[in-house]
């Protein structure tokens, strides 16, 4: 464990994301791509994800307000959203996306609406956690060596 208290806190925070299922192995892939040439890569990708996926969330929201539901369109939006989310390792968000697509396949309006509310919750929770994480990382300063999780 790191002697620097801020970095220790950072490691604990990071571990909790994996232990509580917010992030999966894909996030580690992002960390491995971060180097001297690309020192803020993880934050960049996450920021890009939240910025870009906002429009998908909005499209899905609008589509859910239309009657009747266009399940094919909903599924197409969610397919893309799932692809993005899995690229950053957003495990819970990805799981909700998969569930949503199942509801689309079975033409379940109730299911889609409920699932989407849950998805938005997970999406927002992850964002808050990652924002806090990056802020702490900036305060803690650069790590001397990268630590691989178990």
């Amino acid at each position, binding site marked *: 464990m790191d002697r620097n208290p801020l970095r220790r806190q950072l490691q604990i925070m990071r571990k909790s994301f994996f232990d509580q299922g917010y992030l999966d192995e*894909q996030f580690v*892939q*992002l960390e*491995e*791509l971060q180097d001297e040439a*690309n020192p803020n*890569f993880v934050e*960049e*990708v996450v920021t*890009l*994800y939240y910025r*870009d*996926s906002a429009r998908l969330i909005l499209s899905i929201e609008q589509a859910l307000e239309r009657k009747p539901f266009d399940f094919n369109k909903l599924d*197409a939006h969610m*397919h*893309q959203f*799932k*692809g*993005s989310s*899995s*690229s*950053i*390792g957003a495990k819970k968000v990805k799981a909700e996306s998969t569930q949503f697509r199942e509801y689309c396949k079975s033409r379940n309006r109730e299911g889609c609406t409920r699932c989407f509310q849950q998805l938005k919750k997970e999406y927002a929770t992850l964002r808050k956690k990652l924002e806090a994480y990056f802020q702490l990382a900036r305060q803690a300063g650069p790590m001397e060596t990268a630590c691989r999780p178990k």
Partner: protein
Amino acid sequence: MIVERIVSETKDQFPIGMRVLAVDDDPTCLLLLETLLRRCQYHVTTTSLAVTALKMLRENKNRFDLVISDVHMPDMDGFKLLELVGLEMDLPVIMLSANGDTKLVMKGITHGACDYLLKPVRIEELKNIWQHVVRRKKFDRKDQNNSDSQNKPHAGSGEAAGIGMLITV
């Protein structure tokens, strides 16, 4: 020109400097793909539009060694791009998708994709994609008698149909 010099220097170190055109309308996925490909030491050009990709390829088909493209894109179906690239430029194309449905994978292969990767792509998979370029060059020559098959990556059965296997070390 400096660009030409860099290209000719890295040509001898193939697959280092292999020239890849990456196409994906999702900016997060495209940024990740680009970074992964650069980590493999390939030379990467990106675009979020299939029509732009086609335009670049049509302008100079010798500018790239391989194309890697998402299946679902708003301006053009990835399979359509795949077909056109196969017909016009005869370059190896790898399809990418978050959807691993067997029917879609089959569609990709029958439309001429030399591989079909699931998102999120891992760097280990991208480290092997250069084999498609070599394999294609080998069969283009149709020089079966002289080919040094012991040293080339072994493709296995089904290679005539374009369905190759990648050796993962």
